[in-house]
């Protein structure tokens, strides 16, 4: 873990309703633009945030029907990384139980789904998931 400070921090509380992932992705964009991330990297962050939101919307079964997101710009003096913590108070899951998806297998399978975490890991620089029956938290980081 790099030595660093929180240079700014914004929190967003979203209802689990259709398209609300777009609101999250716009707030992420504002934070990333603020730290002068390149537009391609901003786009990657946007997509990861969308995926993390819809995972909570779809799978968490959180009773409060809410997702809590904290966007933090971290760095020593200059903004170095954007850290996004997305939390729900749902039923949780064990990430170890989630098999890595492959296109060959999905082509034969009934359900073609199961790509979200793979995409998030592919687009962000660091991803950590902690989950219990109290809920799920995903911490995603992207360097500037």
């Amino acid at each position, binding site marked *: 873990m790099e030595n660093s400070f929180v240079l700014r921090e914004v929190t967003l509380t979203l209802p689990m309703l*259709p398209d609300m992932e*777009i609101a999250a992705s716009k707030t992420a964009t504002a934070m990333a633009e603020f730290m002068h991330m390149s537009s391609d990297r901003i*786009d990657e962050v946007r997509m990861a945030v969308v995926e993390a939101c819809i995972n909570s919307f779809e799978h968490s079964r959180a009773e409060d029907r809410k997702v809590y997101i904290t966007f933090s710009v971290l760095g020593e003096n200059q903004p170095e990384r954007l850290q996004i913590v997305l939390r729900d108070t749902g039923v949780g899951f064990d990430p170890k139980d989630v098999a890595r998806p492959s*296109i060959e297998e999905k082509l034969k399978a009934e359900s073609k*789904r199961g790509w979200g975490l793979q995409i998030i890991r*592919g687009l962000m620089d660091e991803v950590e998931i902690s989950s219990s029956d109290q809920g799920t938290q995903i911490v995603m980081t992207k360097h500037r």
Partner: protein
Amino acid sequence: MSETLKLTVDRRDALAVIYTEGYINNQGGEEIAREAFKLIDDGVKILLLNLAGTKIVNSIGISILIEIIERMLEIEGKLAFCALTPTIDKTFHIMGLTLYASIYPDEDRAVTELG
């Protein structure tokens, strides 16, 4: 109330191009699949999805597109994509879609090579 995807279809004999405009989510993916299956049933063997008007997708939308690939394998047809944003392109690579669907930078290039 939700972001809606607009589709335009350009049918050219065995080849058809579908242009999308907007967010490819659950409904968006289903709309594309519906249109694609209609075209396939109607004899289209090569389908090009021009995503120039789509800046954002989600994994639910894209997984529906895998159903089109599956169908194309059955009929020995071909699904291809063009005009992807760098992030959508990267996502398709992450998913391995590129093993079963070609990606072209723009429509001209796609049409020439799919010819």
